[in-house]
């Protein structure tokens, strides 16, 4: 079976889906001639032409607004916002417009739009490029928020996103883009939304994460194992829909939970996870829920980002404290 990294998995998904469904088109800044700033769309304009792989003007609101109109016309647009932090300039077209279009039209119109957006720290990118603002879109009913953490899921969840009749924000962990390869089959498969996965089994403490933070938790869990603390890891995969059942069962199994995310602590999606556990798993908890997140300050200059982002040491420390409590 072929091995692919996240960039290759995404490129493979887009290629196969454009081949399968002639309605699928890509649009965004630099997605055509350059193949995307991370090369996720490399080679596609050559295969499918400039009318299906479109270099748009530098204007995020119209990339999303036009995608909505394209969807109404019968196309299946996959829009790229070059970095999730840049969605601020398209926020109105995403949450209030795309998210509500089916509802506002009382079901007459669908908004089958996928928005791909790389995000996250750890790659020393310039200002505004690293912001983990996924929780903003959880507060936008109608939008599904999808956070793959590995190459296999990236392909399967992207295919699921493109085919989902509802609008999907597909957040790509740019730190993992070329970190490693894993088996990613050729051909069609999808990873359903709303199905979290236990990415590692362990009896002492449950780490809950999504996107690149899952990889961080894997490293932390390996280190914890050296100190005889066995951590399990729940990869939520999608924030909307949220798989409450898998989450609750995995936390109840250890009675201890540490939530890890790159977004700032306050009102990050970890707060929703903690509140859900308080409602659904309170009597199974043996220790207070801990959160390891970025600080409640702006993303700092790249040279300081390792002090800002959750680290292996911070996760290990929180997990040991929680396991011992």
């Amino acid at each position, binding site marked *: 079976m072929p091995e692919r990294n996240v960039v290759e998995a995404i490129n493979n998904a887009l290629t196969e889906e454009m081949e399968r469904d002639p309605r699928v088109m890509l649009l965004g800044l630099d997605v055509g001639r350059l193949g995307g700033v991370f090369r996720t769309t490399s080679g596609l304009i050559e295969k499918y032409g400039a009318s299906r792989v479109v270099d748009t003007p530098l204007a995020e609101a119209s990339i999303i607004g036009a995608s909505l*109109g394209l969807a109404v016309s019968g196309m299946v*647009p996959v829009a790229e916002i070059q970095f999730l932090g840049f969605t601020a300039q398209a926020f109105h077209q995403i949450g209030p417009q795309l998210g509500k279009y089916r509802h506002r039209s009382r079901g*007459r119109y669908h908004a089958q739009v996928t928005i791909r957006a790389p995000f996250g720290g750890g790659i020393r990118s310039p200002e505004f490029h690293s912001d983990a603002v996924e929780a903003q879109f959880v507060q936008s009913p109608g939008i599904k928020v999808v956070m793959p953490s590995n190459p296999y899921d990236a392909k399967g969840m992207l295919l699921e996103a493109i085919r989902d*009749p509802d609008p999907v924000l597909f957040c790509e962990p740019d730190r993992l883009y070329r970190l490693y390869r894993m088996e990613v089959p050729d051909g069609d498969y999808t990873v359903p939304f709303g199905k979290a996965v236990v990415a590692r089994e362990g009896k002492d403490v449950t780490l809950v994460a999504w996107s690149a933070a899952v990889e961080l938790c894997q490293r932390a869990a390996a280190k914890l194992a050296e100190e005889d603390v066995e951590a399990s890891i729940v990869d939520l995969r999608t924030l909307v829909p949220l798989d409450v059942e898998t989450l609750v069962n995995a936390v109840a199994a250890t009675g201890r939970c540490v939530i890890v995310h790159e977004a700032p602590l306050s009102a990050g999606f970890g707060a929703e996870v903690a509140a859900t556990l308080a409602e659904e798993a309170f009597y199974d908890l043996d220790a207070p829920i801990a959160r390891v997140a970025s600080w409640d300050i702006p993303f700092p200059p790249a040279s300081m980002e390792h002090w800002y982002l959750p680290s292996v040491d911070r996760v290990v420390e929180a997990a040991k404290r929680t396991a011992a409590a």
Partner: protein
Amino acid sequence: MAETRLMTLQPDGKLLKGARPSMDEEFLLDALRWMLLSRLYDEKVIGLQRQGRFGVYSPGLGQEASIVGSSMALDPERDWIVPQYRELMAIVRHGYPLEKITATYMGKTTEATRIPEGVNVLPTQVALAAQLPQAVGLAWGLKLQGKDAVVMAYIGDGGSSEGDFHEALNLAGVQKVPIVFFMQNNQWAISTPRSLQSATPSFSLRAAGYGFPGVEVDGNDIFAVYQAAVEAVRRARAGDGPTLIESVTYRMGFHNTTDNPSRYEDKEQRADFERRDPIDRVVRYLRSLGLLDEQREDNLRAEVSAEVDRVIEAAAAEPGVRPDGMFDNVYERPPARVLKQREQFRGSNGNA
């Protein structure tokens, strides 16, 4: 003001010297009927709103030529309208049944009152200019699929200050999509006058910055509005790309039923536009041709008024909302959490 403002029919009901009417007499009588429907409907539902039977409403009073004349250039079978919110009779003429819209204003927001299948109209938009990038995408997609369709997107002088206006017109120019941007410059964005909206002498001039033509028309002259719209639709259909039409008119009513223009309106400006009323102008013209007399005009008004009454009655008879209907049509594939919340709501509300 642009170098030329297209006008054919003068406020006194006489054609400008050398000008030819853009509509034949039968078509003009149809246009008059639509304009009267717009006006009489507005007058009647404002009354209903004051009685608490109708929602917040933005009338098209004074803008009837602009609203009706623009939409008459479209073919409802193949063309699309992307409205803002003050173009009611444009979308009705295009096929969205007036009783369904009326029912919505009367609180009956259900699937039964949505835009019917086959009617090429998008939902009204009150987040101004947000509809424009969407309209461009629609026109773009129709073009990519080889459909012989033109999109007419409405905007106002106020909405043109939004960033989405710029992004949409820019993209439309680059992709050369079949679209007409129809701006009703009614001089007001609630209380903010046109002079505080932009320093441009004419909004139509902005089109040059996007690489397509802009036209300024007397928006209270149905012939001029229709002529400009027909030409813009022709260009779009021929593959020549977008046009921006600035239709200079005046909001004779109010922003909406919560507004009170006496706090800010310029009396002289209003009086000036009163003299240029779009309906009076057509009536004078038709009378001068001997095509309309007092009796016939009265009959027409009575017919239209009866139609408005019938529409309101039909709307009142539409089924009402179910409380849990608010959960409908948010997602095609709803998250389990939302379904659970709906169950919870049903339980608490006794609405199974």
